[in-house]
């Protein structure tokens, strides 16, 4: 009765009002729409730019590019694959060093392009012959460019790639073929068998010799244990000592047999080789056992290129790294990353959920709980390297050293658990991601309506029954969100890992189904994130390593996305199961 409905303003007043409104920017909706929209667009551009770059660069690493042979005006002949194209401004000295004809051309080029010259980077490799991996060539000094039909890029087990045209197939130094086609045919015929032998040698070295070594090692440890327990010269020790000596003699005999076998296989492999003609006109001989893959790129056509592309991806995912990690595969790093992340999740989710349950369901809400909550939240903001230092100081040097003292005394002074390892790395990351899980779980718990708890208590349920049957199922999707966030955070973390167990090279996986006790949580491991750092910044041939950096990054992103997808799928299933069709 007191508030009458507002009447539309009359002429004069209304006009004044309208003018006032127009003067205020915020009274219009549009500017804010544009501002917020622009911010979102900026975010999207950044994200898609990042993804686009990584996917593009990482995806093309394994694509076999055509091999070109160029002849320069100075008379050099180079063969290789173009890895980069850009422009630069040559210095006066460099110009003077050029022969006349070339200088004239370069200067003309410079005039046409405002002082800069186009150039390309050619991956020429043949490092053992030339001492370089890459060469810059100015476009204007190229006299002739060809794509030799039989140019072959060879990926070798050592010393990088090799470019050349096959000339002859050598058996024990004697040429068995003449001409590229025949030679290459012969190569393809023999190569698979030779690779099989290389594999066999590898197995013998790693598994058979490895087993003998670990048997001797175990025996030595047993002997040392007896020595520590009973002292030297005790009858037990003497008996054990005799046993050990017998075992070592046995092992040495086996050792000799296996090394002989390895020698035999090596000799067979070494008798096969290929003679290549290199770009400069010289020849070079490459042993077949050193060749991982040879591709006559200019001949194979698109289908052949795709096949090589996928073959190299497969090698990347499943093989051990070669050549200081810059070639070959990343299998140990892939395995290490996934295993560490899973271990971390298995540790952090139950602990985090239980802690959150105590904070939210059991603890009397008061000042102290508030302090704990703030502390947990702040823990999420602590720089990750701090956790690394803590992990090293606490897990490795205190817990690990204690375990060594108690259980691995015989191996001392070599540490077993008293150094970085996948277990300590997982625990460190679990600590790092604990706040994420606690906060997410607490949020999920507060989202469970109190009426549900009351209903359960009214039925005569105890506190734990209520939590277990009502609260946790209801909160499960939220808890999974916490797990997802922690996986995303943990899988991408590198800095703390460098302190607690991630290493450059660790071909021995933490899981070995051939050796008792199958799980080796104390072993150091490789990690994709650390691998990226190592390949990108620690390898001598950084230009060749660059594509691998992108590819490994692509893989790391894919792994994180995949782990997240799995967790999201699980969450969606839980949601459907517990919440039914509605709500």
């Amino acid at each position: 009765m007191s508030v009458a409905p507002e009447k539309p303003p009359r002429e004069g007043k209304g006009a004044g009002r309208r003018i006032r409104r127009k003067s205020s920017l915020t009274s219009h909706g549009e500017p804010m729409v544009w501002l917020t929209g622009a911010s979102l667009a900026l975010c999207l551009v950044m994200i898609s730019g990042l993804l686009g770059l990584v996917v593009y660069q990482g995806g093309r690493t394994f694509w076999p590019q055509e091999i070109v042979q160029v002849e320069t005006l100075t008379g050099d002949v180079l063969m290789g694959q173009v890895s980069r194209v850009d422009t630069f401004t040559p210095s006066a000295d460099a110009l003077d060093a050029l022969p006349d004809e070339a200088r004239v051309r370069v200067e003309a080029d410079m005039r046409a392009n405002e002082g800069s010259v186009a150039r390309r980077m050619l991956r020429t490799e043949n490092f053992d012959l030339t001492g370089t991996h890459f060469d810059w060539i100015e476009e204007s000094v190229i006299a002739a460019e060809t794509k030799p039909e039989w140019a072959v890029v060879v990926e070798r087990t050592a010393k990088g790639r090799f470019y050349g045209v096959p000339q002859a197939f050598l058996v024990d130094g004697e040429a068995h073929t003449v001409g590229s086609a025949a030679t290459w045919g012969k190569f393809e015929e023999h190569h698979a068998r030779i690779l099989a032998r290389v594999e066999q040698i590898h197995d013998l070295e790693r598994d058979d010799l490895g087993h003998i070594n670990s048997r001797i090692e175990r025996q030595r440890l047993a002997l040392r244990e007896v020595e520590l327990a009973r002292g030297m010269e005790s009858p037990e020790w003497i008996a054990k000592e005799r046993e050990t000596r017998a075992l070592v003699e046995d092992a040495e005999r086996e050792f000799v047999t296996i090394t002989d076998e390895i020698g035999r296989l090596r000799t067979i492999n070494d008798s096969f080789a290929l003679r290549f003609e290199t770009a400069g006109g010289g020849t070079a001989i490459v042993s077949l056992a050193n060749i991982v893959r040879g591709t006559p790129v200019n001949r194979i056509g698109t289908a052949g290129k795709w096949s090589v592309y996928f073959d190299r991806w497969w090698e990347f995912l499943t093989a051990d790294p070669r050549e200081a990690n810059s070639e070959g595969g990343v299998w140990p790093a892939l395995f290490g990353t996934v295993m560490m992340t899973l271990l971390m999740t298995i540790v952090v989710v139950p602990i985090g959920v239980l802690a959150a349950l105590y904070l939210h369901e059991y603890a009397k809400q008061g000042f102290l709980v508030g302090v704990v909550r703030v502390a947990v939240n702040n823990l999420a903001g602590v720089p990750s390297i701090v956790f690394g230092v803590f992990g090293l100081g606490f897990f490795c040097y205190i817990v690990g050293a204690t375990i060594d003292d108690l259980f691995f005394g015989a191996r001392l002074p070599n540490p077993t658990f008293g150094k970085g390892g996948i277990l300590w790395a997982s625990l460190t990351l679990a600590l790092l991601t604990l706040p994420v899980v606690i906060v997410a779980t607490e949020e999920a718990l507060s989202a469970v309506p109190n009426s549900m708890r009351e209903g359960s208590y009214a039925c005569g349920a105890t506190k734990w029954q209520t939590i277990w049957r009502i609260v946790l199922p209801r909160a499960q999707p939220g808890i999974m969100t916490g797990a997802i966030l922690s996986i995303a955070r943990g899988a991408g973390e590198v800095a703390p890992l460098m302190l607690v167990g991630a290493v450059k090279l660790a071909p021995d996986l933490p899981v070995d189904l051939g050796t008792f006790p199958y799980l080796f949580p104390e072993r150091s491991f490789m990690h994709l994130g650390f691998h990226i750092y190592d390949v990108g910044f620690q390898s001598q041939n950084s230009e060749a390593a660059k594509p691998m950096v992108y590819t490994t990054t692509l893989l790391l992103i894919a792994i994180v996305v995949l782990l997240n997808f799995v967790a999201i799928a699980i969450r969606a299933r839980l949601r459907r199961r517990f919440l039914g069709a509605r709500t």
Partner: protein
Amino acid sequence: MSDLNPPTDPERMKTQLPARATRPRNADAKPAASGAEKTRARPGGLFECIAEGRQFESVVHPDAGHDEAVVEIVDFRLWYGETQALHDISFSVPKGKVTALIGPSGCGKSTLIRCVNRMNDLVDSVRVEGQMKLNGDAIYGKGVDVIELRKRIGMVFQKPNPFPMSIFENVVYSLRIDGVRDRHALEEVCESSLRGAGLWDEVKDRLKDSALALSGGQQQRLCIARAIAAEPEVLLLDEPCSALDPIATGRIEDLIDDLKGLYSVLIVTHNMQQASRVSDNTAFMYLGRLVEYGPTETLFLSPSLRETEDYVTGRFG
């Protein structure tokens, strides 16, 4: 349908009694009371007397006390921290009958009913004095096993609160937490409880579906089924229909009628029609005190106190 929205519906009560409903014994209460007094109540009436915290005797009609009591409340007092919410309440809930608790919003009906199964233990600041008895066993006191006690009492809340699980699991929840695993026994209890709650025909084909997919009225009947599955000695209903539409309300009222005789029911309601329709006895509370308690008929047709009459006829406020 209009008679289901009588002048005494909760919304109106709340708007008319803001100060008192939320803050009993507040200084603001005075002008409001005197406003009422001018038109209807006697000078120095009972409500004024209660608001000022003076002593007074609740009127308990003798014919309400004949039956055997299932819940007996003796001199019960309760404090939320420093504020006393219940003052010297004494009456008994007869076995096999429906007892209604009425009174303006904030007078302590929920507080009282939640004391019967000790749900107030969940509130940190609560302190009680006096005694309650369930079939002769003390509810308060040392050595009382609250979990066991709650198993003997069923409760249904204002808002339906089905658990996030299947209909079947909801109904047999109290058996589950007792560790009953016998499938056959569970199914039997599920069916009889759902039949008891008048829900069986509607859900018998979808017992495995989530209970959250049911309508509000169905959910509330499911909660009743859950409450009677454990064969409680007394059933507490705290405004079971306030979140429901008139049709669903009617079904629940019919259901309470059916439960009469089988179960002893204590029901809180704001709806006078509902109280008069379903209950045998009625207790009228005001600002944490029991004002008048007696057979529903007496209380509604010839109450001893003028205030009770004003309240039940909707002239109070």
